[in-house]
């Protein structure tokens, strides 16, 4: 069965510093991986996804993520954090070998960017 872990409940970073939000996954084959962001009192917004190809994926708002197959990770990164990046971040995985399987979301990581 597929699963997603986000080992950090909370990440604090100073504005202007690089940020990393960690995600590891478990699927039987090659995964489809997604990052979503949730701002207060709002639904989830899609940031980026990895399907195939280049391991470094660039997405919205200057975010990027690196797919690392050997470490089964898909960490979200941004070179220079903004206070407005403060939000709840969710990693999700889907196993393409199990058509019809729904997405599995991680528990979320709350990012706080301090001015």
């Amino acid at each position, binding site marked *: 069965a597929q699963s997603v872990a986000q080992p950090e409940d909370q990440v604090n970073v100073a504005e202007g510093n690089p940020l990393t939000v960690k995600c590891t996954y478990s699927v039987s084959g090659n995964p489809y991986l997604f990052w979503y962001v949730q701002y207060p009192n709002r639904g989830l917004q899609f940031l980026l996804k990895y*399907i195939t190809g280049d391991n470094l994926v660039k997405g919205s708002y200057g975010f990027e993520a690196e797919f690392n197959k050997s470490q089964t990770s898909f960490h979200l990164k941004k070179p220079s954090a903004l206070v407005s990046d403060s939000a709840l971040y969710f990693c999700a995985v889907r196993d393409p070998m199990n058509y019809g399987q729904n997405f599995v979301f991680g528990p979320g990581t709350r990012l706080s960017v301090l001015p």
Partner: protein
Amino acid sequence: GAGVSQSPSNKVTEKGKDVELRCDPISGHTALYWYRQRLGQGLEFLIYFQGNSAPDKSGLPSDRFSAERTGESVSTLTIQRTQQEDSAVYLCASSLQLTRETQYFGPGTRLLVL
């Protein structure tokens, strides 16, 4: 509309009453998902519709919860005899059929059971 819409945006009900939540997916999206998000917590999968296939109901927490979808359009999530622990934000998402496709989320319905 351009995105997933949900109604109502907020619902306050009394314990024991039934509630019905509505989701309008993006036109052309054959897959539709319902999730529950309790305050400060992650997403809890409830149910998944994919085209004309039988829905995946494996996430429904009890028989008080049910959902229907008319073809590839509107879906309703019904909670019967609501309990206080049902209080949460109920999120709907839709996507194209292919597994590589992104889910797009609606704004959610915030349910409060008194």
